[in-house]
């Protein structure tokens, strides 16, 4: 294993290389663009044996990897913000066909150039597994784990993993690069669910429009497959930890200093990495607040939040998104998960970092203090806060 100081986008490209991707397609969009440069370099200098398509737009990149995965080639695509929105339509199909495509999303908000999670959040209905990463090491490791989970026979679903634009994409950090041999042991070659080769033709391949039967069944089976993926994600995270010495919580969430905490705050992506410092300072000041990093938004780890909900009196969700007209996505999901608990804690809402607004340690400490007040039964205003 070697270590190198590298930016997030390079870590993503190395993850793709180590995963021995066979077909990759991309279109340049800030802040994802340099992944396409790193990848084309790796491919053209012979370090990665991969078909590389410089496509004419994100819609095509999604369709290209979908088709490649269907044929039997491990496929990778990456995008940001507006590109993510542009590829929305075929993303439904990739999940519907249960194709284990992996996509890196270098977050960029949809209201300008700066980072927030509104790009990937806008894909909640497409049926993709969604992960949010907090540092460059996690970005690299997550690519490898993503293929392992996506291609697992029990899952067979596409995975999108996020890296906060600029904050990670263009920031250099030390990253350990796993050995190729070890990655090969961890990640066996990809085989498609069924052969598309003419010699394996059977008449059921000719299905056209309409599938017959109960039209709700495809929705239900896909939804249940997503829910079922939680166990596989935990398993793969554990196995990755055994092999490479790095674990990301239980694969779904990562709890930091939650033991003995009266309240927890929840953050995603780099908000979680900043929050680690804030939480340390809280404990130093004698204020018992823990951090839950929400890595896996879809499928949502209900069970983990139910367990946490029994242990604390308040949960403060810091959403780097807003589903306009409803509220923060993470907030809604957490409240939903804990609602049936006998003695449920309060859940309060913070919005932070939208449109790339900077989120400082102090901001998160204020959110943590407010959450602790709620846990102790104090009245707070306002109930929904834009940090």
């Amino acid at each position, binding site marked *: 294993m070697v270590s190198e100081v590298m930016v997030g986008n390079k870590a993503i490209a190395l993850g793709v290389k180590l995963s021995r991707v066979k077909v990759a397609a991309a279109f340049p969009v800030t802040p994802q663009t340099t992944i396409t440069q790193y990848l084309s370099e790796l491919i053209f200098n012979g370090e990665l044996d991969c078909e590389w398509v*410089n496509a*004419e737009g994100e819609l095509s990149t999604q*369709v290209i990897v*979908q*088709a490649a995965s269907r044929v039997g080639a491990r*496929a990778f695509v990456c995008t940001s913000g507006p590109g993510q929105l542009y590829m929305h339509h075929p993303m439904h*199909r990739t999940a519907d066909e249960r194709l284990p495509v992996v996509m890196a999303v270098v977050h960029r908000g949809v209201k300008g150039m700066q980072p927030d999670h509104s790009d990937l959040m806008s894909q909640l209905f497409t049926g993709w597994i969604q992960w949010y990463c907090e540092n460059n090491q996690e970005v690299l490791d997550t690519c490898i784990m993503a293929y392992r989970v996506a291609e697992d026979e029990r899952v067979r679903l596409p995975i999108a993993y996020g890296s906060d634009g600029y904050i990670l994409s263009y920031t250099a950090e030390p990253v350990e690069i796993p050995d190729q041999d070890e990655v090969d042991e961890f990640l066996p070659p990809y085989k498609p669910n069924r052969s598309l*080769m*003419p010699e394996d033709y059977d008449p059921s391949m*000719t299905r056209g429009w309409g599938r017959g039967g109960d039209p709700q069944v495809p929705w239900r089976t896909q939804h249940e497959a997503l829910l079922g993926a939680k166990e596989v994600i935990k398993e793969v995270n554990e196995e990755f930890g055994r092999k490479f010495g790095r674990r990301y919580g239980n694969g779904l969430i990562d709890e930091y200093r939650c033991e003995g905490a009266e309240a927890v705050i929840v953050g995603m992506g780099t908000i979680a990495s900043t929050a680690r410092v804030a939480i340390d300072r809280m404990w130093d000041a004698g204020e018992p607040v823990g951090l839950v990093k929400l890595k896996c938004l879809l499928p949502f780890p209900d069970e983990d939040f139910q367990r946490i909900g029994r242990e604390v009196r308040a949960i403060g969700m810091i959403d780097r998104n807003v589903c306009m007209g409803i509220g923060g996505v993470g907030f809604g999901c957490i409240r939903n998960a804990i609602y049936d608990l006998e003695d449920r804690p309060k859940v309060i809402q913070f919005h932070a970092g939208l449109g790339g607004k900077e989120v400082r340690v102090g901001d998160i400490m204020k959110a943590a203090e407010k959450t602790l007040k709620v846990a102790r039964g104090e009245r707070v205003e306002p109930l929904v806060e834009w940090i």
Partner: protein
Amino acid sequence: MSERMTMRQVPLEELTITPGSACQGCGAALAARLVFKVLGPNTIRHGIPCCPDSVTRTPRAGGVFEGGGAMLTGTWRALKAIGREDVNVVGFFGDGGTYDIGFQGLSAAAERNENIFVVCKDNEAYMNTGNQRSSATPLYARTTTTSIGVRSRGEPTRKKNIPMIFAAHHVPYVGTASVSYPLDLIAKVKYAKGLRGFKILIINCPCPTGWRYDPSKTIEVGRLAVQTGVWPIYEILDGRKFRLTYKPRELKPISEYLKMQGRFRHLTEDEIAELQAMATEEWNRLLSIDGKELNF
């Protein structure tokens, strides 16, 4: 260049399964029958929403309407990656998926010269959704979105010249064909199949339901399109070598073609004369470049 074929050379094997979803007298269903006979079973057929949805005895991959070019690209690149370059990667798309919503992706695939074969069954409107105009709809044609009224004489603009647009991408093969000239059509598929790189064949497919004529007249309507110069059949190699593959000694008057179809029933003499002038001019232009090198 494609070579003349005889009826005896046409493969007997049928690759399409009847009835599919076609109407009586469907030109596009006939196109599918002819095209897949020649492509043979070592083919993956890619479908996007189109009319009719043909059924073939080959594996089928489906995808989003706008994604035809990208879908073929992804399949071809993956076949290359897994060492199966022998398989024909074929898109069987309608005019909407080729001229309109799918154009960007197809243009990009052509520009990258992906090793794929696009067959466009051109029935000159969105027939799947009920005859709405597309950019393949000819001038003055009545469709359900270009109805005839005080403010409309039908389709207001000329049909997009898609074969020449693809030829300007300098791709190995561009051809036009007609279901009414099956030997010519088959010869073109056979020739193009053997080329490496981007191939596209645009087939004029009369549609009795949308064009409003008796379903028994499909072949006749298709033949008149060619014989009046409305749909010249030709091929272009590498965006340079141009050849008309059928040259009537004299063009028939365009009115013979128009009067068979309800979609042109409202036309005035002046409008017919205008369409005649356009067809004659285009035909003379093609005659002047026949057998020569194009210069895009």
